[in-house]
């Protein structure tokens, strides 16, 4: 068994920042990650980091924009923390040598982004995430922080008290991809999940193949609620054939969207008369799909994003990476022709319920980054707000887990304070179903036995995960996980996309149920104990099943149109009824739905919901 003060799961921006903070606070910290840190998907972020750095700007304006962008579903204390800390964290990156783009006077450059009242998106070309990831990894190397890379965390070691709020996390169990060893990692002070989003639940996504929401699924099964999972951001400019992202920076620099008739539809069709292409992402994605659905799409599939008028010099200076992506992955030359784009799954606003210090309702368990929901993005994330979340909340989680004193959180977690319970109108049984009690084939619920003694608990969890590996490799028949995964991805893209209807959502739940039942008979075809990616992906698929279901349940429950979530049956925002977060608890295999009011009271003011127009 391995043992450290703090264990960080995942090595993208949030995980690395958390580990550095825990190290600074004096803890013995280690990272356990299925990928080597520089392979993490943070590296694919292009646009930038929002931070109020200039005299003419303020964190209050950043907070206002973020709250408006969230369609008033963000929690004010979390949003204000993000906006207050972001300038310090961005300059910290600069002090660590990050290669930001620069102004004539040598200061870091900032550019306009969708939904922002000030050009506060700090960037490094169109490869900001790559620069951020490598800068943080460099600091990790400098500090000699231990990384167990290509170790896949399979489960958390959490005690099994009846109420999740009474449980405690003492570590994780991981699978060494190189050798198939299953080992326990005991965390004396805390476990921080920083495992990224569940983008692979969809088949047209900008997310990496590795973005399978592992941390979310593990926390969910350990009793931590998933919050606001229905809010999925569909980025308006992804390449049609692969889902590769074309940065919002293109529109920030002046790129224009055209339909097949050559109309600048964001204005000419009245979708966003003030901000046009730079309206919030959900607004632009719906506009594009409406154009396509009404017959004005190109090849009935996409629209054009044109940046030719910016000129080669400006493109090369600020958007060079975009030229390479469009050329390599779509065969389009952005200097000579418009680029084809369509909406694609990009980001999950929801996730593991945490407060603004990254703490969940289970003792010793933290989450930060895309896998978490504090909630800073509410119903829709603004471009340039994901990277600051990684570094601001990653750092706070790292400090908190390492025992460093920080302000007490104002956001509540778990079933404490004000909340209401609800029922789910599902056409099929949700959750475990099938063969209850067969925790091994079904991914393992709370650790077997759930002993309060940390060492025993770890050992028991290791044993049950070993058994799970054995069972998966000697399965009863031969369904391959990729069939199950495709089924889920297809139904999610068909029914839980930009436009959502009740019957489609119910169909998705039926399809997911069927996929769950099929998964009972899944088998790992590769018998090898060396670098068995078949085994890894089979477990990932199990995680995707839980998350696809959670997303769809939230989407079915929320009968209103807010931010990224649109319902055919209720095409307006209903503040009287729905100024509340959706929470889904695993509840030992029978998912339970409940709600908690949004916090609109900030430090100095209360945010009044207004019509969100751009």
């Amino acid at each position, binding site marked *: 068994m391995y043992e450290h003060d703090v264990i960080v799961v995942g090595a993208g921006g949030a995980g690395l920042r958390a580990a550095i903070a825990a190290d600074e606070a004096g803890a013995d910290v280690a990272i356990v990650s299925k990928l080597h840190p520089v392979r993490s998907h943070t*590296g*694919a972020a292009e646009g930038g980091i929002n931070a109020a750095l200039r005299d003419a700007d303020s964190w209050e304006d950043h907070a206002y924009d973020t709250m408006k962008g969230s369609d008033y579903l963000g929690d004010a204390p979390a949003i204000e923390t993000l906006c207050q800390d972001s300038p310090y964290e961005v300059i910290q990156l600069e002090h*660590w*040598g990050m*290669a930001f783009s620069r102004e004539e006077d040598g200061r870091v450059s900032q550019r306009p982004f969708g939904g922002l009242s000030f050009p506060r998106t700090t960037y490094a070309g169109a490869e900001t995430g790559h620069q951020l990831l490598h800068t943080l990894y*460099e600091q990790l190397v400098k500090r000699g922080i231990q990384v167990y890379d290509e170790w896949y965390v399979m489960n958390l070691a959490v005690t099994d008290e009846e109420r999740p709020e009474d449980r405690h996390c003492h570590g994780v169990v991981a699978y060494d991809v190189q050798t198939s060893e299953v080992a326990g990692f005991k965390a004396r002070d805390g476990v921080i999940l920083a495992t990224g989003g569940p983008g692979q639940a969809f088949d047209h996504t900008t997310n990496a*193949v590795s973005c399978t929401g592992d941390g979310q699924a593990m926390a969910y099964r350990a009793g931590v609620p998933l919050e606001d999972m229905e809010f999925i951001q569909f980025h308006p400019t992804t390449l049609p*054939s692969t889902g590769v992202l074309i940065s919002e920076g293109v529109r920030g620099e002046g790129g224009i969207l055209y339909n097949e008739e050559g109309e600048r539809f964001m204005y000419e069709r009245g979708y966003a008369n003030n901000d046009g292409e730079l309206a919030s992402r959900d607004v632009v994605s719906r506009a594009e799909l409406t154009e396509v659905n009404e017959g004005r799409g190109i090849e009935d599939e996409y629209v054009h994003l044109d940046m030719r008028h910016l000129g080669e010099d400006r493109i090369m200076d600020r958007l060079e990476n975009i030229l390479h992506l469009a050329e390599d992955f779509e065969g389009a030359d952005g200097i000579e022709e418009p680029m084809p784009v369509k909406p694609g799954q990009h980001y999950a606003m929801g996730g593991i319920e945490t407060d603004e210090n990254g703490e969940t309702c289970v003792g010793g368990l933290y989450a930060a980054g895309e896998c978490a929901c504090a909630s800073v993005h509410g119903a829709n994330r603004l471009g340039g707000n994901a990277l600051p979340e990684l570094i601001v909340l990653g750092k706070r989680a790292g400090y908190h887990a390492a025992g460093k004193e920080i302000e007490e959180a104002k956001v509540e977690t778990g079933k404490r304070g004000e909340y209401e319970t609800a029922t789910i109108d599902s056409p099929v049984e949700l959750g475990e179903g099938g063969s209850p009690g067969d925790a091994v084939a079904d991914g393992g619920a709370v650790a077997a036995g759930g002993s309060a003694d940390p060492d025993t608990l770890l050992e028991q969890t290791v044993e049950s995960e070993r058994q799970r590996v054995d069972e998966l490799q000697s399965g009863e028949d031969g369904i391959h996980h990729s069939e199950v995964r495709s089924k889920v991805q297809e139904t999610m893209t068909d029914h839980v996309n930009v436009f959502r209807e009740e019957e489609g959502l119910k169909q998705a739940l039926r399809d997911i149920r069927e996929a769950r039942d099929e998964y009972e008979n899944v088998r790992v075809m590769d018998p090898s104990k060396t*670098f068995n990616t078949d085994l890894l992906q089979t477990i990932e698929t199990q995680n995707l099943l839980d998350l696809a279901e959670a997303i769809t349940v939230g989407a079915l429950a929320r009968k209103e149109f807010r931010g990224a979530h649109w319902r055919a049956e209720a095409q307006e925002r209903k503040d009287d009824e729905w100024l509340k977060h959706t929470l889904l608890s695993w509840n030992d295999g029978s998912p339970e739905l409940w709600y908690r009011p949004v916090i609109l009271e900030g430090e100095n003011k209360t945010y009044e919901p207004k019509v969100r127009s751009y």
Partner: protein
Amino acid sequence: MSTQPPQHEHEESPADGVDDAESTPPAQQRREDAKADKRSRDAQRQAEADDAAKRDEPTRHIKVFRYDPEIEGKQEPRFDDFHVPFEKGMTVLDALIYARDQYDPSLTFRHSCRQAVCGSDAFFVNGDQRLGCKTQLSELDDPVRIEPLPHQEVVKDLVVDMDHFYEEMEAVDPYFDPDETPDGELEEQRQSRENREKVKMSTRCIWCGACFSSCNIAAGDNQYLGPAALNKAYRFAMDDREGESRKTERLETIEQEHGVWRCQTQFSCTNVCPKDIPLTEHIQELKREAVKKNLKFW
């Protein structure tokens, strides 16, 4: 384009013939059944691919290196042939994913982002180091030979041991380490646009290891830092924000016995770099800087 009927030519699945002493007879039976199931599904897919060929839909032929130290039949390295239906825009990585998901789930390779930024999927494709996700099949002749990166130990199939590469990267103090930092928490270090431009290409490295694998010197001298690590050193040595004293130390590091002077400017690293980093130029510039420094102290 191949005119052969598409099929998975290696008939025996790698799982076949594995002597698993621990499995009980019923389990063995289930495995046999599973294999039969899988064979029938494979056959169905091959039939579909056959139909596609009859309808003149194009397929592509890939030959993939296979090796697994513990699986009988794979302990001796071999090549497996796969025929995959071709779609416009299909990359080497797409073909590998298709072959794995449709024909042989044990086919193993690293990959993640699919967009040339995670650096996981550098392979040796028709004799060159290339990123699988960034290489269009349409640029390559059939059969497309896909092998692990040369000069690195093969773990399994296309997966190589990257530890030696990482060690070299970490040997050059690969982190920003300025002579002095600003006093204020919100005070920026200024950097000119020219200086940022100077280091820009060097910061694009995605640690894929293609350059290191292509380098003859690295192949012959196990301690040679190699082009990627030297480029990392360049990234910091040329960054004005670090200051002169740190730069001098960095130049001493890269001047060591297995440093810049080993480079024979063959340009193989520059030719294979998927991010177009002028690696050889950077190494040459480090050599010039080192000479300047030595003259100054002489």
